[in-house]
């Protein structure tokens, strides 16, 4: 009994520690990519090519003072960054990185991830309320409305993928894509899913919750030191989680792009990492290119464009599936 628990803890650490490193170097990657796009060098002072920059940033955040605003609700104020960060990590329990390389191969994997990502809104809305500041509260309300709106279209897109795969298990969804990635038949939905994940993770061009020009920094104005750090890490962790989700649903998970012998020899988790990194690069590319959306345009896009399109796609997909079955 004790030994089994120890093994599970060891497995969890094997997932979490590389993930934290990935998150840390995602911030480095982001600064380098945006630097390159804006014809700058990006971080290049700390260590060779600035490679120790994320570690320096982390140490700086840890050594700062944690400030609790007056009249803030202390318990919820501390709880919300912890919640955000935990939710960004526990989604990884069901993500298959390679064939059978997964902590818990549960048969409602897709729904688990969807539930986890829909819980993410609580960290933000609780932070906004608990810090007892107008800016933080307005940012939190915006964020909650935005995340709920885009979850609707994400859910519908997931349903149309599920209709084609016929399973809620993430490993089986990937195995069904051996002949053809779902990217090809579901291409419009892949685009909509990608844009919705941008909105779901509060990234540019939908980073209205932390619009600096109007709300200072949104829900995390009052946070400092590691409590801010946890929000920051949580956001980047969610980016990676959603990217791996779209990798599994549309880009064939760990499967190589073609059935060539050379491609088969490369281990599956490297393909998985490459695909996730490509999607993350798209995230950063979009951030460096596009200006921020106006709030009413964001809501219009979610409810009046994406929702009808993804609903129509479900009907089209299920008709095609029934036609092919007969």
């Amino acid at each position, binding site marked *: 009994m004790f030994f089994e628990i120890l093994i599970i803890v060891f497995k969890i650490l094997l997932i979490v520690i590389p993930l934290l490193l990935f998150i840390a170097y995602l911030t480095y990657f982001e600064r380098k990519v945006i630097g390159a796009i804006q014809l700058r060098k990006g971080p290049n002072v700390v260590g060779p090519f600035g490679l120790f920059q994320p570690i320096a940033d982390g140490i700086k955040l840890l050594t700062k003072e944690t400030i609790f605003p007056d009249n803030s609700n202390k318990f919820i104020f501390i709880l919300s960054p912890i919640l955000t960060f935990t939710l960004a990590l526990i989604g990884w329990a069901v993500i298959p990185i390679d064939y059978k390389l997964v902590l818990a191969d549960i048969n*409602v994997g897709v729904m688990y991830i*969807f539930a986890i990502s829909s819980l993410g809104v609580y960290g933000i*809305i*609780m932070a906004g309320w608990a810090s007892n500041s107008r800016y933080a509260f307005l940012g939190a309300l915006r964020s*909650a409305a935005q995340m709920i709106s885009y979850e609707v279209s994400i859910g519908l897109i997931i349903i149309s993928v599920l209709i084609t795969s016929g399973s809620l298990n993430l490993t089986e969804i990937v195995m069904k894509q051996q002949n053809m990635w779902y990217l090809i038949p579901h291409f419009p939905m892949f685009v909509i899913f990608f844009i919705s994940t941008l909105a779901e993770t509060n990234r540019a061009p939908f980073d209205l919750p932390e619009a600096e020009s109007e709300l200072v920094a949104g829900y995390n104005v009052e946070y400092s030191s590691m409590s801010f750090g946890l929000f920051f890490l949580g956001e980047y962790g969610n980016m990676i989680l959603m990217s791996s989700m779209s990798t599994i649903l549309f880009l064939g998970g760990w499967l190589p792009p073609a059935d060539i012998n050379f491609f088969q020899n490369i281990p599956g988790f490297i393909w998985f990492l490459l695909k996730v990194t490509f999607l993350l690069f798209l995230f950063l590319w979009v951030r460096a290119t596009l200006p921020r959306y106006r709030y009413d345009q964001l809501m219009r896009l979610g409810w009046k464009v994406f929702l009808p399109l993804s609903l129509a796609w479900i009907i089209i997909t299920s008709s095609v599936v029934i036609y092919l079955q007969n």
Partner: protein
Amino acid sequence: MTLYFFYFFTFIVILSSFLVIFVSNPVHSVLFLIFTFFNAAIIFLIFKAEFLAMTLLIVYVGAVAVLFLFVVMMLNISESVIKEGFLRYFPFGLLLISIFLIELFMIFNSDKVIFPENGFLKINEIMNLGMDNTKSLGLFLYTDYFIIFQISGFLLLLAMIGAIVLAHSDIKNPKSISPINQKNVDKKTIIKLN
């Protein structure tokens, strides 16, 4: 082992649902409500009803309770107002609770209410065949109970349309700009150089 887990989580559910009522801050009571939902989902998981557990999380915790929290935070209700209404609403609440309790007793005491007479599928048989939760529930809902399923869907649609009709106002908001009009703006008429 499972039994102890069950007792532990039911204890938490009961405790937190009491706290929903007795906590003075309305935002705290909504948070306890969310905690109750969450633990109810865990109880579903203990009984291997993973589909129901995840649906509970997605629908109630992920969507409905967020909107609750949203409204309660925005209304900013003072704590004294809630305490004043207690005696006024207590008889009504007592009536509702007693109706619910009697219904529960009636369902659990009789053994013939649940299954239809001419049903083809029995949920126990499907589960025993070794199909997973989601599939058996789907087979069950879309065959024997299809009409009831559709009717409940229409009820929800009706509620949605009703809410939209009640909240909709014909007054045009001058601040909102239609993106089509925005696209059709002509450069010559808008920009003037003197």
